[in-house]
């Protein structure tokens, strides 16, 4: 599943299972290309991982809480614990590996 952040549900969303959070900015080109890759990944792994997109400008509290410094930043959670993190546009196989390590 790939969805935009619903603030009230975030803590609950990341608490269980494999959740990949994409901290992005709507004005950032690499973020747009990452979104393109994530859509592709969702087609094949969407039933095993939840992908949540968090807008950088609209969610300063979450950005601070998770110490995100730039965008795009991908943070992989498993049962609420951060497993891995990558900054910048990433190769599709690298993202798939992040997800598979959390399954």
């Amino acid at each position: 599943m790939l969805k935009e952040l619903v603030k009230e549900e975030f803590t609950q969303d990341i608490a269980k299972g494999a959740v990949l959070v994409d901290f992005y900015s709507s004005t950032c080109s690499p973020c747009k290309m990452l979104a393109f890759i994530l859509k592709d990944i969702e087609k094949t792994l969407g039933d095993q991982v939840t992908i949540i997109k968090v807008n950088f400008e609209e969610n300063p509290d979450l950005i601070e809480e998770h110490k995100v410094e730039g965008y795009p930043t991908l943070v992989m959670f498993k049962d609420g614990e951060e497993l891995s993190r990558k900054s910048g546009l990433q190769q599709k196989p690298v993202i798939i590996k992040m997800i598979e390590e959390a399954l």
Partner: protein
Amino acid sequence: MRKYDLVVIGAGPAGMTAAIYGVRANLKVLMLEKLAPGGQMINTNEIENYPGAGKVNGSELALQMFEHAQELGVEFDYKTVTKIESIEDSKRIYTEEDDEVIEALTIIVATGTRPRTLNIPGEEEFKGSAISWCAICDGAKYRDKDVVVIGGGNSAVDEGTYLATIAKSLTIITDLELTADPVSCDYLRSLPNVNVFPYKRVVEFVGKGGEFTGIKFVDKETGENEQVIECDGVFEYIGAIPYTDFLEKTTILGSGGFLEVNERMETTIPGVFGAGDCNSKHLRQVVTATADGAIAAQEASAYIKALRRKEV
């Protein structure tokens, strides 16, 4: 083994144009890309000199080109090419991801470039934290802070103009003058929070107790007049290195690892062509990349026609 008339390595503007021209010439085309479609366009906030597009975001133009290629039937795959081989009239392509060998009659190398680094003290320590090569990605953390851009070419001026809207102060240190197009240079110079230091050479990224504090530079010609500017972050735009490592064992690379091609984009290996920023050339722009891609694909098509005539 998957077989194609044309395999395009790289999905930047050169590669995508080559793929479009390839399918329109009735070729079976596969385009390989290790990251995402767009190449250097992805890191460009606004492209203002691609005819007909007006002012366009880099990734939006990239996605439009990619969709165009997909609509015409270009196959696409995420692969990092590690080696190519030329065996008689056939080419073989090996990739990092798996053991699959892809066969093609022709190859267009359109792999683009990556940023050059300074290789000076402190760079290794602070890269990824205080030193960045992507203003669009990392600029946000320097709101109301002091930032330095190293370089004076197109990328330095474009990204510097973007950073100047975010940072408290922007200092540009370059070993020549600003060399981008004069309109962009004049605009950047006119901004109240921008200061340009031409004819300087950066010699060190300075830190204290593991914290980045600033950069040290000297006069380019004499190596004297050492100065330190305190800042919170640095962006390097000092040129590019081609993604041609996988071709090192071939004979088609020239100075700096760039592909040597003729006006038909032919390399010295028959059936292997080069296009875009990875070619040895003077001007690297989206419009010159697309032109290279079109020429390379037309020549690949002509090469295949000649091969087929030979077989008859």
